[in-house]
């Protein structure tokens, strides 16, 4: 069973096609990236996977459950983190985690919170209001919230956006460690090439709502005869073709 199965999914907003007939699967225990520029359809795709946004057509299943019809069966096993969604500012870190612990029905909540706070170095911040934390601290709290229910599938929207390189690097290491320890599946939307190169087993490259190429980072490097994901990304973004394409334009 695939952790994620997307079949012919389209999302239209009026006449605008935000996501155009995309299909892909994600194997359990792997890390997959949706890579693309601004407006490529990454966040729209993630939103549809989570059921925040209803697709115009197509089918989505997460962990073997149809997300359009049986969303609430799978949500307790999934979680999500985004720098564009906040936790209530006036609640302390402890209060925020307690509320979400109840919403997810986390057994042994206090012990789970203590474990996460230790792992994510949040113990000293527990009684601070979420609104008074730095960007890096907020990201760590958001991660603790996203990991409270030990998700089998973790969806991350630009997980290291607005973080300094040190914190971003630490967070990537943490995700990889979490995946190793739990066998969880990670799907992240990103335009951070380092992140994608370092973390991902599979890359889905999106452009104007479509998946225009896919493969492992090594496969993509070979296909485009490039050494970095950034070069591959620029080739696709600027419509330079693959080396085997006679119409290829050199930079």
């Amino acid at each position, binding site marked *: 069973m695939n952790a994620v199965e997307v079949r012919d999914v389209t999302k239209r907003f009026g006449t605008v096609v935000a996501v155009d007939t995309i299909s892909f699967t994600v194997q359990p225990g792997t890390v997959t990236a949706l890579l693309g520029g601004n407006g490529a359809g990454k966040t729209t795709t993630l939103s549809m996977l989570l059921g925040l946004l209803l697709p115009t057509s197509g089918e989505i299943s997460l962990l073997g459950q149809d997300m359009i019809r049986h969303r609430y069966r799978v949500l307790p096993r*999934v979680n999500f983190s985004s720098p564009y*969604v906040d936790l209530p500012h*006036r609640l302390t870190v402890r*209060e925020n985690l307690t*509320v979400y612990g*109840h919403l997810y029905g986390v057994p042994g909540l206090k012990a789970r919170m203590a474990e996460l706070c230790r792992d994510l170095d949040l113990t000293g911040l527990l009684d601070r209001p979420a609104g008074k934390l730095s960007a890096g601290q907020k990201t760590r709290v958001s991660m603790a919230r996203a990991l409270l229910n030990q998700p089998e599938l973790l969806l991350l929207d630009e997980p290291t956006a607005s973080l300094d390189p040190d914190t971003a690097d630490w967070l990537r290491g943490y995700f990889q460690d979490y995946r190793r320890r739990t066998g969880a599946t990670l799907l992240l939307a990103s335009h951070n090439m380092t992140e994608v190169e370092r973390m991902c087993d599979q890359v889905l490259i999106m452009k104007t709502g479509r998946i225009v190429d896919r493969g492992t980072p090594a496969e993509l490097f070979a296909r485009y005869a490039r050494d970095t994901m950034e070069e591959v990304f620029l080739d696709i973004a600027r419509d330079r073709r693959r080396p085997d394409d006679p119409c290829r334009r050199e930079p």
Partner: protein
Amino acid sequence: MILSVRRVAGLCLRHLYILRGSWLRLIEMAYWPLINVVMWGFTSQFLSNNSSWFAQAGGVLIAGALLWDVMFRGNLGVALSFLEEMWSRNLGYLSVSPLRPGEMVASILVMSFIRTMIGVLPAAFLAIPLYHFSLFSLGAPLLVFWALLTMMGWATGLAVSAMVLRFGLGAESLAWVMIFAIGPLAGVYYPISVLPDWLQPVAWALPPAHVFEGMREVMTHGVVRTDLMLSALALDLVYLSLGIGLFLYAWHGARVRGALLNVGE
């Protein structure tokens, strides 16, 4: 649809933490009902000295002011509890949690009840030493009036929340103003018979008209009009169903438009 008490309580906890952490919010909730009861108390005293009807029905204005606040606070409690999620840009995380829309509605109704109690009870108690009027002297009918007005407040609050969900935070001021459209037709301080003939059927189509008429019957004649209570209840059920339906419809619409992820100030 099965509601989880744990999840409803979990979301209530989020709002209770906010109230616990801010004594200013608690004061704000009780502030206007207190000011209102003081103003109507003095008005009532003045009119009692100059009108035999008011002298006979002592406290009818204060009772009206307090019970109107029950409906207003009921509406505000629902709308503000929902707006709180939008202001804090937290709706995205709530929407991907196992919390169902029905559970969210249940928790904001519970919070509205708590907010109404915090807002109106201090004013009701203040009227006892200040004007020698106890709202509680209405007896058992008070509980019925309270419940009926709360239901209408909830219905209005849910309609406001639906509009905010549909039109964004630009519509948030409706939380404070929309319910006042009902005010002239509710008969809070005067009987419905005062209204022009053509307007009276409109007033009778609203539950508060029945409640305030019933309140005056109890206070002036000592008569409990169960017919008025039952008609108010029937209308409340219609309006509350409409409010819940409108909210769930707006929620579905937000999922179609993708408005749940990027809402906020």
